[in-house]
């Protein structure tokens, strides 16, 4: 295993490796909501990539994402009412069907032919409602990131949403380099070996993988508890792994776990261990705020709701520590607008993520290193 080194970036690239990139691609799927948040009873207001949306379900149960502004005077439709297949503006009662086409207007016998509210492509997959706020002609459902553990019968778990007061790329940085666990999460999953162990980085056009193994170590509290859920009374050394899978633009599924030391986990036999997947997908709300959807899925003791709840609460606590750091980091960035980032060896994964995002932005003709305003 070799230590990855952050390689110097292509000199022809338009930004320096350390540029703070605050923009986000539009021609991509983002999670707008958990499936259960979108109902046929009340519209949900949520902003995705600077686009305010009203999310609701029509009478067929299909999720709908519409611009949250009535065609007439831009009153937010999310404050309106649902009537089966239609949403009614709370101000003057104009109604729209799920394609965004006005179906009734006050005080006239016809409907203005241009009365339409943009309706965005939606795909429901992996317990999430994904929306595409870019060019609808490019919206290919096959390009929804792979988060199959979320709804596979081989996995159990649950998650939450963090409203992160920071640019989405700070969250991606946070997840691509887990050495921070040693310092931010010292009481749960942190341990010295994290920053001592070497790691590998590989990438494709749309993905980055960072792999780190720590052999023959003590399990930190979170993992010791999980081992004992599966192997009651367990004690002893473990082999620990973190395999971080990034899929563009902002989904990171982290294969994590520990196994009894020396039982062959690094070679592929994880039977003597516990395995979880930390499922993360981050949706930029604005340049300075993000919706951070996460879940913790496990492949053992699938029947236990108690473990599901304990894991969700445990990760909730861990992520609360991240949230505090990310907010503080965003404040410091805002206070030091001229300071660029320095990068370390540990940032190699995050740098590949930035490279991929940079190329997506370029493909859309969007400035990659736009200053956050």
């Amino acid at each position, binding site marked *: 295993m070799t230590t990855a080194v952050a390689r110097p970036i292509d000199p022809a690239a338009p930004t320096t490796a350390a540029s703070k990139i605050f923009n986000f691609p539009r021609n991509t799927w983002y999670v707008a909501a958990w499936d259960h948040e979108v109902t046929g009873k009340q519209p949900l207001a949520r902003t995705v990539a600077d686009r305010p949306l009203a999310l609701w379900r029509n009478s067929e149960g299909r999720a709908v994402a519409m611009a949250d502004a009535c*065609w007439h005077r831009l009153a937010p439709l999310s404050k309106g009412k649902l009537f089966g297949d239609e949403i009614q503006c709370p101000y003057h009662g104009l109604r729209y069907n799920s394609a965004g086409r*006005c179906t009734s207007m006050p005080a006239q*016998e*016809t409907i*203005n*032919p*241009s009365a339409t509210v943009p309706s965005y492509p939606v795909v429901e997959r992996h317990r999430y409602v994904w929306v595409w706020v870019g060019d609808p002609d490019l919206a290919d459902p096959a390009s929804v990131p792979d988060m199959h553990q979320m709804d596979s019968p081989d996995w159990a778990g649950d998650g939450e949403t963090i409203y992160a007061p920071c640019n989405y790329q700070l969250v991606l940085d946070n997840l691509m380099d887990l050495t921070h666990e040693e310092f931010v999460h010292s009481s749960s999953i942190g341990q010295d070996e994290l920053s001592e162990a070497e790691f590998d980085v590989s990438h494709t056009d749309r993905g980055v993988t960072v792999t780190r193994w720590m052999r023959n170590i003590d399990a930190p509290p979170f993992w010791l508890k999980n081992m004992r859920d599966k192997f009651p009374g367990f004690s002893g050394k473990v082999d620990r792994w973190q395999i971080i899978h990034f899929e563009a633009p902002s989904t990171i599924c982290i294969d994590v776990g520990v196994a009894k030391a020396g039982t062959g986990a690094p070679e592929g036999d994880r039977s003597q261990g516990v395995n979880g997947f930390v499922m993360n997908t981050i949706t930029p709300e604005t340049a300075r705020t993000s919706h951070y959807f996460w879940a913790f899925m496990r492949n053992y003791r699938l029947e236990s709701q108690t473990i599901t709840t304990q894991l969700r609460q445990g990760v909730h606590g861990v992520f609360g520590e991240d949230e505090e750091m990310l907010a503080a980091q965003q404040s410091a960035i805002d206070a030091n607008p001229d300071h660029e980032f320095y990068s370390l060896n540990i940032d190699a994964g995050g740098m590949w993520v930035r490279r991929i995002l940079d190329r997506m932005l370029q493909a859309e003709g969007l400035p990659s290193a736009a200053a956050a305003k």
Partner: protein
Amino acid sequence: MAVNTQTWWQQGRVVETSDLAKGVRRVVLAPDRPVHAAPGTHVDLRLELDGHVRKRSYSVLRSEDGGRRITLGVQLAASSRGGSRHMHGLEVGDVVEMTGPVQSFPLGVGADRYVLVAGGIGVTALVAMADALRRRGADYTLVLAGRSRRVMAYLDELVETHGDRVRVFVDDEDVHLDVETLVGEIAGSPAAARTEMYMCGPIRLMDAIRRAWVARELPEPNLRFETFGSSGAWAAEEFVVHLPQLDRSVSVGKDSSMLDALEDAGVDVMWDCRKGECGICQVKVLDVSGRIDHRDVFLSRQQKETYASLCLCVARAARGESGSGSADPAAVTLHLP
């Protein structure tokens, strides 16, 4: 795909012109502030016609290179209000005042089936839509109707691009578009309730389709259309507007709209869309001598038949079929708000 309804002005330089068909001119503009023009958008041009600045709308046929090249297709209208004549006179290097792309005819996403119907020059609004549907892999049909192949712009190119999806109806070949059959086919298909029709063309064709659509109980919101209020049941002719309230009469030339004529005469009138959609310029009709050619899509058929009101921006008066021999122009008497 946000609906862009703001109107901001910029300058556009004419970079190419050519003839698309008999009487149809292709004009390629390079705007100052390029913005990609989505399918269904149009641009408004500010043209100086007969000493007056007039706004005219033209569908964007094609937007290339992020909107750096905006192609329009302009038919020389038989009774031009001056706009199309001016557009046909443009040469490479000329500069026009134009808006950014305005979206009032957006192509929706997610319908099971799309039927695009173009009557004559209405095709200009649908070319980009057909291309977008093809790229999406959508199920669509493109129906092209015209008087003669010679005047049908983009016909060969569309047939070449869209193949079997194009259906061509040409009056002088005795292959007429039968609206009842077309709408009947849609109503009888399993995808009936999930078929969207987009139409652009003469108001008479669109009215006929609308009637058939309603009669077949197809969902009205699925019928989408755009009109610039420039075609009617009768050719434009000169007529007179009587305004007893103001104790005056205003003559409307065949190249002018009633709204323009009243404004030019200093009458204070309220308006918004100027293409017969919004109903803001609706006024009460007190009397008519001749027929009212409504040309709007705001009033319902029943409202039009009662002659109780009209939309100043597009409505005209005409002597109609009964006008034979009479030298007196048609007249309407209006009550202004």
